[in-house]
């Protein structure tokens, strides 16, 4: 496709439009901008961040949502190649893939985004205060001039024209003169090569479900409202209070599936995330309000993701969260107390009533209200639920070429999957726009750096009034006078806004005029503004690191508003400390690391092939290593998808494309034996075995003598080594003992071959087929859920029922985990008459058989060699009936789980990347870096990461490619100058630094037994420096001298 377009000479635009600035949109934008494309990000609201910004904590790590997201927010906000267009929507789209013309409409903000410093004085005084604060899920109010949330990007206020009376106060107060009442809506046409839809979801409005009393009873809240209640930045500052009277609730109930799995209201699908977020909220509530009892009322516990099952177990056992399997029928309010009485039916059939102080409705995810309108203007199709239509074998493409989708707009999903899809669309986009890479991106050119050696510190100090934010409390002129008296300070001045454009010019002039070699700015926080001032210094020829900031606003004037004298004293101290440190600063180098323009992909299954193709299509060389003699991996055993796509045809086509791609070198029957180097510069050795049979010894390197060794250099590594299907051993379930016991994939193979499984010929031909779920999953040995088995069972059950409608099919399960839109197939299976029987967690069904001719014998496990097995029966306890059933079966199908490959360990050691407790590869961050490793330049995709479905694997493979290409496309990586450094003569070689370094950046030199820092790997945390007793290792930019100079300045 790419070639065709190039050949036809059609224009390809090297820019991309991302619609939606939530976590998905941000990730896609960053990945694209980092790999050479200019990104327009159109966001409906006044700030990017989306739903994730509203969340308190995230499962399963309980990370603070804002903490982990903020760096991405800030990066999007100031990326040279991302233009964030807030308050805007797409009006129309013309053209085709590679060359779209998009008309954007931007609503007025009434505040000049460039001028607004986000100080918030306007909002503090705005006379209108009654507008509901949507960010706080309407639990509080906000003024007419507001920001979405304190960390908003762009950090500029907006006027809500609906409620504003136009009194003019904000304009009077704004010293930055940012208020712009005559702001008007404008339209803009942009040219882009591709469009990414990342609009996310809307939460279901539970008012419709009258029986739960939402809207009528104040103590019935939605999960989103509760999320805000839990948040430290929320309406109650993180205290768990109930809205009716501000009391701390004793008992909180979570009602699941509100607006999900509910055909009556038209949302038949499962929202995928509610079981986990409700559990998380139940856990966090317990942390915030010790002693509170939390109960989750659920239908099926869908903790299918990586680490989810363990999270639920911890919630249950460590935190004492109670789980009740039921569908709550009704919620009524108790008289006087505002408490709520829930009625529900227990599994045993009894009707229970229970009183709670607070009820949280776990509302589902819906397509955004304007999703249909957007789809119409983009001319793309929606599925029956209102999400964008995609295919399971091409999950990121919409129905119109060149328009892609990621995140919850494609179907309900959690954050990591959204982020995965986002990186994935970046890759898909990159592939179609390959020819235009770098054509529209901007790059800055700097003057040569000044040589400051021998000049000595000459410090210039710039103290900011920040309008009245600082100047209103701190006596700025006296701070300036004080600064002039400090050692090494040769110049000091005050500014109304040090961050304004004209002050930047002024700082540069002063650097020239006074020959400044260090610059100190006393203003707001370095977290947001240091890069700006560093940039200013660098443009004036000063090294980035000859700059120091004193935070006299966020950590001084704003927090000591009623103590001007003390605040001024503190500001002086902070300036003194900044100057003391500044005098010791040294120019540091941002080292460019050349990147080898090729990738190594380990594993030639679905994930490996997809990744390899993507990277190759983006114009980079790929080395694909597969241990088996042919490509395909686990996928060769699957035949059709849940929605009926033909897998083997797809696989054959995919393998052909990989084999014939000019940029992909395929090493079949080969193994990687060694990796050295670091991001951008890896060197690997591969043993090509070229063996003909598929059996390759799992011991890596055991084939060295026979194979040919090749050494390849590459910039990145993608681990896509897959996983295996669990096979019950020792005759468990009579597997491999009785011919009528097969695994799900064996069953599928038979179904695919057209006929009814031949191995049951000897059996009772008309007997039922019994499927047993959770074989090898969620047990003592493997605590995790294998995620796919429920859908696989449903898939094969439906196919069987279609072929042979009269045959009884039983599925014995613990929780049906047909999450997302897969739920529809679960419904279909039930409609077709498949019987689902739930068995208790601790009573695994027993498969037994007798020996022919001796019906009294009963074999449950290992049976002697010479026997002739009789009919099989499954014994199971039905939790609904509460009794034990014995089902004679024609065939027993075991839904066996997915287990990690035992070779993972060796590969993990070679790449210095971690495995999780189950033996799958452990990504850098469960939420936001789902395909990255902490080790830069190494990525993971597919089953090697955790069990997942085909569409998820494809998305993740695209994602790994997308992430890998950000490094490959950059050509060079600029490493930050804050790095550890070893003074050789002081090092005793004790190796403590090597052990504590989480990035394996420090190694002991074999010869001299001294520590050596690999600056390419060092992240600059300084842990090694603080651990070294000898003082041999220090962190440049945060040396002991510098820190102690600050200490001395602050104390003495």
């Amino acid at each position, binding site marked *: 496709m790419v070639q065709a377009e190039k050949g036809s000479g059609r224009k390809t635009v090297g820019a991309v439009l991302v619609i939606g600035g939530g976590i998905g949109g941000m990730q896609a934008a960053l990945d694209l901008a980092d790999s050479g494309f200019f990104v327009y990000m159109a966001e409906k609201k006044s700030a990017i961040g989306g739903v994730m910004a509203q969340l308190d904590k995230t499962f399963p790590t309980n990370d603070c949502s804002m903490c982990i997201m903020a760096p991405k927010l800030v990066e999007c906000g100031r990326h040279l190649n991302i233009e964030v267009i807030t308050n805007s929507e797409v009006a129309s789209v013309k053209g085709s893939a590679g060359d779209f013309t998009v008309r954007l409409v931007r609503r007025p903000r009434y505040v000049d985004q460039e001028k607004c410093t986000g100080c918030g004085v306007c909002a503090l005084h705005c006379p209108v205060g009654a507008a509901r604060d949507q960010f706080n899920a309407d639990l509080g109010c906000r003024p007419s001039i507001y920001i979405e949330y304190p960390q908003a990007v762009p950090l500029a206020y907006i006027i809500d024209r609906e409620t504003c009376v136009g009194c003019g106060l904000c304009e009077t107060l704004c010293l930055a003169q940012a208020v712009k009442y005559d702001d008007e809506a404008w339209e803009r046409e942009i040219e882009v090569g591709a469009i990414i839809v990342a609009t996310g979801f809307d939460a279901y409005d539970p008012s419709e479900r009258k029986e739960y009393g939402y809207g009528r009873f104040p103590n019935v809240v939605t999960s989103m409202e509760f999320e805000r209640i839990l948040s430290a930045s929320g309406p109650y500052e993180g205290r768990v209070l109930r809205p009716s009277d501000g009391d701390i609730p004793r008992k909180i109930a979570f009602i699941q599936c509100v607006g999900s799995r509910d055909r009556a209201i038209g949302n038949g699908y499962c929202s995928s995330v509610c079981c986990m977020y409700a559990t998380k909220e139940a856990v966090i509530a317990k942390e915030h309000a010790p002693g509170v009892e939390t109960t989750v009322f659920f239908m099926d516990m869908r903790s299918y993701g990586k680490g989810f099952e363990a999270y639920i177990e911890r919630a249950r056992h460590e935190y004492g969260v109670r789980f009740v399997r039921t569908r709550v029928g009704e919620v009524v309010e108790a008289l006087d107390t505002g408490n709520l009485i829930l009625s529900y039916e227990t599994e045993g059939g009894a009707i229970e009533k229970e009183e709670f102080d607070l009820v949280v409705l776990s509302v589902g995810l819906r397509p955004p209200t304007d999703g249909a309108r957007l789809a119409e203007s983009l001319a793309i199709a929606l599925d029956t639920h209102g999400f964008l239509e995609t295919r399971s074998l091409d999950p990121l493409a919409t129905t119109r070429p060149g328009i892609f989708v990621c995140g919850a707009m494609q179907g309900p999903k959690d954050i990591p999957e959204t982020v995965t899809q986002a990186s994935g669309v970046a890759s898909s986009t990159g592939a179609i726009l390959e020819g235009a890479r770098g054509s529209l991106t901007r790059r800055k050119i700097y003057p040569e750096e000044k040589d400051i050696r021998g000049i000595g510190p000459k410090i210039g100090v710039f103290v900011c009034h920040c309008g009245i934010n600082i100047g209103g409390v701190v006596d700025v002129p006296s701070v300036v006078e004080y600064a002039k008296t400090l050692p090494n300070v040769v110049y000091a001045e005050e500014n109304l806004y040090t961050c304004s454009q004209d002050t930047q010019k002024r700082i540069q002039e002063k650097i020239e005029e006074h020959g400044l070699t260090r610059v100190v700015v006393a203003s707001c926080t370095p977290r947001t503004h240091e890069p700006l001032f560093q940039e200013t210094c660098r443009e004036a020829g000063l090294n980035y690191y000859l700059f120091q900031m004193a935070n006299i606003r*966020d950590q001084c004037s704003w927090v000591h508003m009623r103590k001007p004298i003390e605040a001024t004293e*503190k500001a002086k101290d902070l300036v003194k400390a900044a100057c003391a440190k500044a005098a010791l600063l040294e120019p540091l180098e941002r080292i460019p690391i050349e990147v080898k323009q090729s990738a190594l992909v380990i594993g030639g299954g679905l994930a490996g092939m997809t990744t390899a193709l993507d990277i190759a299509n983006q114009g980079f060389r790929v080395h694909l290593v597969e241990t088996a003699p042919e490509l395909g991996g686990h996928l060769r055993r699957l035949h059709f998808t849940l929605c009926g796509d033909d897998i083997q045809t797809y696989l054959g086509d995919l393998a052909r494309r990989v084999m014939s791609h000019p940029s992909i070198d395929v090493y079949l029957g080969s193994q990687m034996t060694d990796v050295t180097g670091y991001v951008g510069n890896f060197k690997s050795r591969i043993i090509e075995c070229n063996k003909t049979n598929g059996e390759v010894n799992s011991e890596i390197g055991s084939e060295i003598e026979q194979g040919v060794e090749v050494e390849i250099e590459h910039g990145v590594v993608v681990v896509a080594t897959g996983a295996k299907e669990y096979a019950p051993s020792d005759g468990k379930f009579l597997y491999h003992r009785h011919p009528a016991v097969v695994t799900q994939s064996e069953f599928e193979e038979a179904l695919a071959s057209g006929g009814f499984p031949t191995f049951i010929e000897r059996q009772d031909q008309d007997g039922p087929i019994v499927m047993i779920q959770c074989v090898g999953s969620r047990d003592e040995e493997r605590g995790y859920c294998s995620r796919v088995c429920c859908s696989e069972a449903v898939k094969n059950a439906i196919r069987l029922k279609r072929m042979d409608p009269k045959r009884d099919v039983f599925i014995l399960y613990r929780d049906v985990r047909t999450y997302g839109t897969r739920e529809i197939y679960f419904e279909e299976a039930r409609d077709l008459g498949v019987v689902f029987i739930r068995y208790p967690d601790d009573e695994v069904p027993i498969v037994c058989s007798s020996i022919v001719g001796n019906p009294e014998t009963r074999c449950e496990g290992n049976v002697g060699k010479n026997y002739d097995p009789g009919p099989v029966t499954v014994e199971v306890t039905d939790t609904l009936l509460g009794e034990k059933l014995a089902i004679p079966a024609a065939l027993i199908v075991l839904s066996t789980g997915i287990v990690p490959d035992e070779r993972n360990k060796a590969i993990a050691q070679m790449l210095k990347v971690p495995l999780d407790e189950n033996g799958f590869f452990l990504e850098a961050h469960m939420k936001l870096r789902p395909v990255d490793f902490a080790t830069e330049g190494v990525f993971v995709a597919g089953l090697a990461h955790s069990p997942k479905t085909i569409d998820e694997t494809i998305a993740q493979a695209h994602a790994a490619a997308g992430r890998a290409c950000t490094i490959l496309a950059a050509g060079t990586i600029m490493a930050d100058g804050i790095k550890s450094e070893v003074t050789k003569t002081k090092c005793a070689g004790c190796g403590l630094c090597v052990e504590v370094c989480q990035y394996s950046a420090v190694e002991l030199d074999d010869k001299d037994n001294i520590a050596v820092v690999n600056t390419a790997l060092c992240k600059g945390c300084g842990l090694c420096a603080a651990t070294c007793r000898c003082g041999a290792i220090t962190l440049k930019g945060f040396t002991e001298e510098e*820190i102690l100079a600050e200490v001395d300045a602050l104390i*003495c």
Partner: protein
Amino acid sequence: MLDSISAKAPENWEPKIVAFLCNWCSYAGADLAGTGRIQYPPNVRVIRVPCSGRVDPLMILKCLTRGADGVLVSGCHPGDCHYIAGNYLARRKFALLDELLDFFGIEKGRVHFSWVSAAEGEKFADVVKQVTETVKAQGKPCLGQICGDERG
């Protein structure tokens, strides 16, 4: 002088407290306290470090012997460290220091550690309040006094 740690503090004595805040969580939390205009005592002076793991216990001791009246070290919550496990490794050192100072007879209220996330502006303010109050309650510290006497 040596017999009593809590030499009487002069009237309206305001302690100086040095705080080491990790860049990614606690410093951000302190900023958030500012954005939320949450008021807290002005006695704390912040030194920004990349990670709580950058703080060598010797630095804390040095602060005390140089005359700081109190020290606060704050990092990301366990598990949230931007550098994977810097705070976990630092925590061991801090635990040792904490016990050492206690055994040595230096008041528990001098050196404080806290976990403050980027979303906990309120908590940061509370921590500063608590630290300032406990330090004030101790009066002028002996170590500082020894130092001050010898300097002066």
